[in-house]
């Protein structure tokens, strides 16, 4: 299999290194694969990191340490406690702070020679091309499909390589897309999955170390692109299974019929990616008009008044162990098989963590002929917020 060879992304390195930098990068400079020439290329390079979260954290840390001259970061989020299990660029003291500011501080502490450019914005079709213009390499550390397709298309249209990484639970993928000779993300996945089919980290969970593994693989690929050395992941999809500690590799080909990077592209400008992915907003608390709901306060009122209410918990057993309302546990995927355990003559209130899975449960039960079913709006999280703060949130 021939490796695709591309020219290095940073053509001319004009900066110099002072004595402090030479000392700092000594372990790079004494390696023939990097040397003074390579280190100057790193210093001249401008890398845009989209996301300062799970993948972004280790990526940014290592690129800063390596001496990438300019690091742009796009993130509009604020640090919260659930991030700290894996987003290692942020610390406990940063909770409540903007991720951009927290990341900038950490970068300055590791390497004051790095110039940080912060972009506190939601990347979208209006700003992406302009943003990408001033950078040499784009790194995709985002967490949703619309943005991944946006980043890909914007990279192809601006001629910038897209160093891709993605994770789910304990599995990851990495590759380099959108180079001239190589495939783009759409060559691999022409269509996104329907919304709700692939859960997010908040719903599926993620092994904390996994973005560490994949993020550093991305950082490695960025460095190799800048130096123009090694065998890049262009044209290869690296699959990481952290639990089995297995690494597999699949061949990726440029699709000549790809609508974005093929020989006759039909996508020549950025589109509405939310629409492309079939969603109208974030998949958070899903409540549609057709799903009958009950607010946590109302449920509490009715329970206190002695009403006979059957609470159905559709979460997983390990969630039940974290906290529960004493409900009857039937995990959502088992519901079709176990529906005969439920008494349709009773008033049933279904709940999950945030209201999404239980909405599906209510829909299913209504279709199965249950008449007295309600969805607890906002789930056990809302119960914790509005009724009983002693119930832990997770």
């Amino acid at each position: 299999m021939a490796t695709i060879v591309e020219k290095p992304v940073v053509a001319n390195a004009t900066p110099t290194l002072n004595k402090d930098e030479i000392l700092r990068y000594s372990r790079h400079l004494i390696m023939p694969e990097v040397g003074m020439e390579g280190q100057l290329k790193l210093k001249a390079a401008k890398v845009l990191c989209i996301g300062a979260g799970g993948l972004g954290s280790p990526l940014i840390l290592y690129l800063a340490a390596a001496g990438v001259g300019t690091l742009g970061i796009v993130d509009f989020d604020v640090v919260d406690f659930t991030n700290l299990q894996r987003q290692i660029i942020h610390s406990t003291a940063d909770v409540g702070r903007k991720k951009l500011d927290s990341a900038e501080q950490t970068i300055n502490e590791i390497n004051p020679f790095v110039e940080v450019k912060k972009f506190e914005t939601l990347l979208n079709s209006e700003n992406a091309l302009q943003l990408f213009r001033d950078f040499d390499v784009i790194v995709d550390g985002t967490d949703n499909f619309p943005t991944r397709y946006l980043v890909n298309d914007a990279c192809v249209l601006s001629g910038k390589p897209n160093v891709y990484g993605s994770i789910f639970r304990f599995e990851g993928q990495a590759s380099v897309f959108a180079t001239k000779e190589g495939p783009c993300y759409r060559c691999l996945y022409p269509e996104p999955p329907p919304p709700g089919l692939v859960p997010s980290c908040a719903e599926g969970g993620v092994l904390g170390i996994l973005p560490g593994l994949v993020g550093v693989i991305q950082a490695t690929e960025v460095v190799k692109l800048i130096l123009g050395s090694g065998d890049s992941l262009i044209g290869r999809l690296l699959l990481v299974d952290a639990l089995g500690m297995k690494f597999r590799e699949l061949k990726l080909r440029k699709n000549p019929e790809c609508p974005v990077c093929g020989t006759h592209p039909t996508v020549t400008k950025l589109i509405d990616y939310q629409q492309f992915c079939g969603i109208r907003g974030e998949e958070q608390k899903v409540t549609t008009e057709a799903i009958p709901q009950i607010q946590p306060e109302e449920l509490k009122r009715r329970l206190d008044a002695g009403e006979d209410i059957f609470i159905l918990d559709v979460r997983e057993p390990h969630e039940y162990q974290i906290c529960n309302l004493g409900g009857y546990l039937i995990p959502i995927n088992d519901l079709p098989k176990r529906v005969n355990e439920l008494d349709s003559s009773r008033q049933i209130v279904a709940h999950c963590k945030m209201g999404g899975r239980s909405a599906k449960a209510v829909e299913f039960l209504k279709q199965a002929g249950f008449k007295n079913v309600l969805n607890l709006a906002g789930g056990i999280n809302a119960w914790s917020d509005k009724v009983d703060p002693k119930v832990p949130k997770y």
Partner: protein
Amino acid sequence: MKIHIPTPLRQYAGKNSTVDVKGGTVAEALANLTAQYDDLRRHLYTDDGKLRAFVNVYVNDEDIRYLQKENTPTKEGDSISIVPSIAGGF
């Protein structure tokens, strides 16, 4: 032959990361798989029986779209991978 089941689909394949299947083509191997685990069917196929576009299938390290698609021949010792798109990064 072994089919590698990606994480998002393992809950529908009895929590297995690989499943042993038989079949002379990818279509037969996948049919063997869904015969063992019926729940997988709707995640791999649309209602009219087509392989879903965001699910890629590889025989060894080659994408079947560039081989003979579902008619790609398979033999003992081959490794089939199902690779769906995942997006997590935060």
